[in-house]
């Protein structure tokens, strides 16, 4: 009986110590927020532009990011774009932040066949 009580005390004490350490290291755990939808709308809007296909085929992630941001639909979020070819070759950057949302479109090429996936991340 004594042992069980000591175990309980040690668990409680251990959890207090670990919580204290977690708070000290500023580690915050939180569930992802709800999908905002702006990323998908912005990507769909940019996808309709004639230059999108040319930028995607050229793996110009910076150009696509500028095109997406020019739509004005991602205000309040940071934006990053990644373009990946079929073989796994990628251009662009992955998102930072604590919450990130991904939307992607598949592009078959620009006149000739050169498939790639364009992924837009919006994050905070």
């Amino acid at each position, binding site marked *: 009986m004594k042992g069980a009580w*000591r*175990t309980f005390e040690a668990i409680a004490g*251990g959890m207090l110590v*670990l919580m204290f350490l977690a708070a000290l290291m500023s580690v915050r*755990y939180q569930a992802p927020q709800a999908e905002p939808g702006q990323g998908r709308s912005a990507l769909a809007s940019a996808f309709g532009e004639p230059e999108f296909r040319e930028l995607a085929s050229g793996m110009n992630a910076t150009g696509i990011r500028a095109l997406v941001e020019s739509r004005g639909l991602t205000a309040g979020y940071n934006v990053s774009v990644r373009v990946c070819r079929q073989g796994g070759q990628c251009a662009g950057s992955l998102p*930072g932040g604590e919450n990130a949302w*991904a939307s992607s479109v*598949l592009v078959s090429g620009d006149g*000739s066949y050169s498939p790639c996936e364009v992924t837009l991340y919006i994050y905070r």
Partner: protein
Amino acid sequence: MKGQYFIIGSLLICILLFFGFPPEVAVRSGSSDDLDFLASGLASEFPRALNAGINSSSPAAVLGNFTVFSRQAALARGINLTCLWLVFERHGASMNVSAGNYMGHPVTVGINLSGAYAAVYAGADAVNSTAIGISGYWSNLTVAVGQESAQGALLHNKTSVYASFYVTRGDDTVRIEILA
């Protein structure tokens, strides 16, 4: 001495509890709308892939490659993509039909062009072809697979594609068909 074992054991239990928390930033890509987004994107991109295939004189091979690419991209997001497509290319008085089966199991596709009928068997992840006699400028197209069928008007003077996509995650499925 006994107490030390209790303390060590309890510390191990505490550490196990904390292992349940994710150490990295979570990237969320799942919601019900993204299935529609993927399906409509494929519907608009498939005819472009067909055009790219026509430019390289291998529409069926290009569509097959684009299907595999799309399926891998979807799978990376936890989405299962299956599809069946037909490419119609005119050769003189007949229409060559290539059937690409990416449904995950063998299928027999029944194709009716204004009364002229052919059945194409295609194994899983395979393309098979047949030819159907045609006359005039267009045909009433009926495509039948199992209990399902689709209809449309098929122009003879252009290479066309019919495709049926199933985009699935868990219990949610979006189906979309195109004839272009």
